[in-house]
């Protein structure tokens, strides 16, 4: 800690981070020297709460672990519970679940593209991307009755039918999405100011990524092929023709390309599902009070931000004995910290946004006073008392 360095607490309330996580940056002038992540800001004890609710009520808790990848959590939860209970869901329900998962991937990736453009100051692209994202939001609202938290999957199948007469309209909407995404690929690769702020920023090589167990688009932008839909297929992903998207430039531009190309793949998958969806009923009877046999199951799902694992243990009651959820972002933090070191302050937001963090954490502010060389952390009350003191006339 040479005397020229000083510490910038970024978060948990900071306009760059829409997510409640906090990082303590030690900077020397404009260059970041050291990073210390502190999460746990929105720890709601979900795993503990799930142990005291039956399998149907838990559906709605897992759906609300995270706003943007709610369907991914629900697919993983229902998959794990069905594996433990030995429940075989109808073929059509699998197609509908894949359809919902890919729609949500489009919605999440476009949301991220807008936020990333905003982080580097390109608000015009932010407005345009979020305007075009409304197409997929309307589609989701029509299919499931809600823009997020779709409550579509249930244990044993799916709750709502995909009416056949709407397919042509949905095809047109999906084509419009593909056309707009292609436009954004052209803009992202030709607009000089984006390239200036994205090429070489937050670089991380393939070996470091593997060593730090990164996952999802964050890892695939450094050349690690780890798309769960390809390497350990679930539902019907092994029958669907789509590419395994990964690039190896390792910087923020790589992350932009991976996510945008993946959006195109998701549009292709959705169209394929609409064309080949078989008929049949959509759910198997599962009454809320039903007990599950003893056993355990691990279910891996490719959520928007990476590999999502639901590990459930049942001991014969109608409530899970233990249900472990690991959101993909927790796996990406070690690689994020490695990306941040050595960069500029101006690149902090775009590198943070690069891994598309999706935390849910509670509130703490941490201070490190370089002069007195002591660290202290305040609770909410002490912080407001200090704030009043600071702002008294």
């Amino acid at each position: 800690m040479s005397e020229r360095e000083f510490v910038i607490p970024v978060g948990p309330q900071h306009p760059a981070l829409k997510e409640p996580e906090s990082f303590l940056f030690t900077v020397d002038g404009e260059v970041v020297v050291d990073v210390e992540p502190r999460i746990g800001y929105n720890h709601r004890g979900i795993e503990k709460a799930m142990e005291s609710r039956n399998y149907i009520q838990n559906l709605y808790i897992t759906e609300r672990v995270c706003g943007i990848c709610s369907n991914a959590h629900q697919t993983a939860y229902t998959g794990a519970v069905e594996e433990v209970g030995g429940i075989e869901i109808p073929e059509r329900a699998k197609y509908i679940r894949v359809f919902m998962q890919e729609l949500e991937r489009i919605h999440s990736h476009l949301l991220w593209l807008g936020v990333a453009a905003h982080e580097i100051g390109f608000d015009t692209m932010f407005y345009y991307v979020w305007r075009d994202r409304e197409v997929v939001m309307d589609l989701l609202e029509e299919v499931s009755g809600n823009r997020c938290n779709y409550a579509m999957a249930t244990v044993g199948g799916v709750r709502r039918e995909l009416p056949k007469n709407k397919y042509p309209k949905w095809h047109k909407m999906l084509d419009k999405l593909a056309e707009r995404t292609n436009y954004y690929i052209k803009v992202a690769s030709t607009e000089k100011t984006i390239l200036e702020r994205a090429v070489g920023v937050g670089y991380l090589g393939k070996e470091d990524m593997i060593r730090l167990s990164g996952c999802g688009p964050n890892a695939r932008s450094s050349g690690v092929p780890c798309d769960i839909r390809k390497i350990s297929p679930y539902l019907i992903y092994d029958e669907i023709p789509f590419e395994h998207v990964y690039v190896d430039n390792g910087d923020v531009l790589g992350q932009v390309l991976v996510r945008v190309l993946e959006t195109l793949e998701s549009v292709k998958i959705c169209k394929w599902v609409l064309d080949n969806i078989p008929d049949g009923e959509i759910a198997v009877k599962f009454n809320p009070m039903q007990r599950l046999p003893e056993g355990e199951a691990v279910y891996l799902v490719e959520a928007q931000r990476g590999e999502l694992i639901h590990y459930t243990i049942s001991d014969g009651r109608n409530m899970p004995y233990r249900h472990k959820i690991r959101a993909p972002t927790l796996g990406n933090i070690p690689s994020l910290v490695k990306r941040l070191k050595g960069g500029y302050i101006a690149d902090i937001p775009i590198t943070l946004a690069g891994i598309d963090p999706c935390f849910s954490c509670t509130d703490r502010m941490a201070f490190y006073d370089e002069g007195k060389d002591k660290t202290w952390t305040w609770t909410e009350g002490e912080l407001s008392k200090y704030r009043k003191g600071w702002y008294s006339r």
Partner: protein
Amino acid sequence: MKKVSVEEHTKVVEDLVKEFGEENVYNTKVPRAYRAFAHVNREKLLDVVKYLKEEHGFIHVTTISGVDMGENYEVVYHLRSEGFSFSLKVPVPKDDPKVPSIVDILNGAVLYEREVNDLLGVFPEGHPDPKRLILAYDWPEGVHPLRKEWDIQTIREKVDGKKWGKDVE
């Protein structure tokens, strides 16, 4: 990716059992392709993880779950090699809740071990900085919420007693 059959994964599990013997790696289970479970003794954990990493390409740690099985704790290491997820369950006695840290073999486990230490109280020995990761700063020491003896009411009484969340002045 070619379709991988169950036999290939059971072979991996059998190699492991042959390598470390029945008493160290026991009641292995391969419910379907891409999934396997096995119990591993705590002393042998580091060697098993090193062996799996070098021989069978288990280079990615998905997560580490802590489970309170009633008479003892169980720390479950979910390792993954190209889609094949292998869960190693390490029983830990309740009176001495410690487990060797695998951070220097698989660096990605650095945060997961801190989380298990926070929520279940199983201390990872040899971990670079086993600070608190998830629980609040002024959460009372020794209260590990995921242990079965704590249910939501007792946690609230234990914690509320200490002005949790109320304004200080």
